[in-house]
């Protein structure tokens, strides 16, 4: 039983009420993805971990879970990258600098950054997967000497869909980070690798026991990438993924995000492969 006074206090405030977030920067990254920089009232920090998400509200349209793409080391604001794919995101795309959105969160468990201290990090980003991973990459860059070797494998369908182009170029120039990029289909200007992201994995040089592999991408990508990574003998609990699910509350109540008995919004969205393995059949991302 919870103490009555504590209970009464909690009953006064609602976790469903969003905070006011002001868009202070907004621009299109590609044809379909828009970037937003958002400031909370009094410029308070969101206080998130890389890998967490927020529920973005547009009154009259509803709410959707969106990954945070800035690092907690970026102070005074946070950033989101949104693909125009549904009712809410379509309305969100019409907003620009100065407009107000509702923000709840941050929610969920982020990447296990504390556990990753001292380890090498291999990041595999497919398509929109770079969005939550940008948060981790920026965090690592900011605390670079806490980590060992860092390499990023980046993949998307066509060069046009590549997100954070300028930032990626910057990362490529940096000596302390290795970045490899591939596209499924090249265009005339593309000079890099062509092929699925899985083709990059056999060639990477890692010390499996000392490496955390963080994978984020579309649902279809996981089982193939995980299978490749397992061939490298990285331990299960050092293979980290972030899963996308439908969500309505972020509070572990509404039921939409459940994988078997687990609420992704509370226990995830970040999981390790040892956890994934326990699922009996509802986790599409688990390697076959």
């Amino acid at each position, binding site marked *: 039983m919870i103490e009555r006074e504590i209970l009464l206090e909690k009953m006064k405030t609602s976790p469903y009420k969003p905070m006011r977030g002001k868009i202070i920067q907004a621009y299109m990254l590609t044809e379909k993805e828009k970037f937003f920089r958002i400031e909370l009232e009094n410029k308070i920090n969101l206080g998130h971990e890389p890998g967490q998400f927020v529920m973005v509200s547009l009154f009259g349209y509803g709410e959707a879970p969106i990954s945070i793409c800035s690092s907690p080391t970026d102070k005074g604001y946070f950033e989101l990258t949104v693909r125009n794919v549904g009712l809410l995101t379509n309305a969100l795309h019409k907003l620009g600098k100065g407009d107000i959105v509702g923000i709840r969160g941050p929610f969920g468990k982020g990447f296990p950054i504390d556990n990753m201290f001292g380890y090498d990090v291999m990041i595999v980003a497919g398509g929109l997967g770079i969005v939550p991973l940008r948060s981790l990459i920026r965090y690592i860059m900011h605390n670079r000497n806490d980590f060992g070797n860092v390499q990023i494998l980046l993949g998307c369908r066509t060069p046009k869909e590549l997100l954070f182009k300028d930032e990626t170029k910057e990362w490529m120039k940096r000596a302390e980070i290795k970045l490899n990029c591939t596209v499924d289909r090249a265009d005339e200007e593309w000079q890099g690798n062509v092929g699925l992201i899985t083709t990059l994995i056999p060639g990477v040089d890692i010390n499996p026991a000392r490496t955390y592999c963080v994978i984020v991408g579309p649902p279809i990508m996981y089982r193939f990438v995980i299978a490749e990574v397992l061939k490298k003998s990285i331990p299960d609990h050092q293979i980290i993924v972030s899963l996308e699910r439908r969500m309505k509350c972020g509070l572990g109540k509404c039921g*939409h995000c459940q994988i078997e008995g687990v609420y992704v919004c509370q226990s995830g969205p970040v999981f390790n492969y040892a956890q994934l393995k326990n699922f009996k059949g509802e986790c599409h991302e688990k390697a076959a």
Partner: protein
Amino acid sequence: MKYAVIKKEDLNKWLEHLKKKARLYAPRKKENLFIFRPVKDISEVCLDYIPTILPPKKYYYPQKEKLFRFKINPFKTSKAIPKFEDYILFGVHTCDIAGIQCMDVVFRENPEDPNYLNRKDKMIIIGLECLKYCDEYANCTSMGNHIPRGGYDLMMVDLGKAFIIHINSEKGEKLVTGLNYIKEAKEEDMLALERVREEKKKIFKEEFNAPLQKVYEAFDKSFNSPLWQEVGKKCVACGNCTAVCPTCYCFDVLDEMELSLNEGLRYRIWNSCQMDDFAKVAGGEDFRKGREARQRHRYYRKFKYPVDKFNRYFCTGCGRCTRTCMAGINLVETVNLLLKEAEK
């Protein structure tokens, strides 16, 4: 006072008294079925009833619950429900009380749900113990919910000419004290209660072919059982089973605008894991595809997942899902088939 007694001829007097104390909800007949309704006319209250179409969950977890009021420009949110009213649920069966206990566990878990807690705080439950089976669909004995297990303020048991009332809370005690027609129970009443309970043992028998622990183990083994294909083939994905379940609480969130298009309300509305878009994301991927997977999920949310998480079965044994199913999916039958299969 621990036990009180009220003569049956005084029951209506008591109901009038309760009606004055708070908003009173009780079962009454609706065609050939029963429903919980606010009591206007005492004579409509019907205590000889089988589980109502909807459980009383509609009062503490409304189909459409106001979460908050909003204004777009300037951005503002405010309370949607200024004050929650006191209310009495009268004549609630022990299975439905078990349902309320399940909901308590869910909504008290961090992060707590203030809408539910506020409504629960205002609730007074007056239970009514069943002395015979409602019909062939219930499985309350297997779930251990055919006898009272707490979770109520008062519990009435029919002793023939009178009701004996177990007083289980201060709130409850206040409703039976100071009334000259409700008296403290005597030893003979206590003996009568004991006799009634003994008699019940002859009537209520476990409906599953094995104890609950075995049921849990069967579920643990049967995730990929072909039985789910069979259940899925029958299912028409109407969502009736989840709507009538006293422990189903999944919801959707919905905004409704006022005519000004600047102000509106955000609601939460009942949703069902049996709907085909329930686990579909904007990108199109459906994470629980097929009626067999969705039915399996419903069963696992009663007999497996909440046991792992809360050490509590989320089936109360009320039998509503079977009673309401248009496709004839029978819970007791499904569980018994699963038990049989797991034995192999």
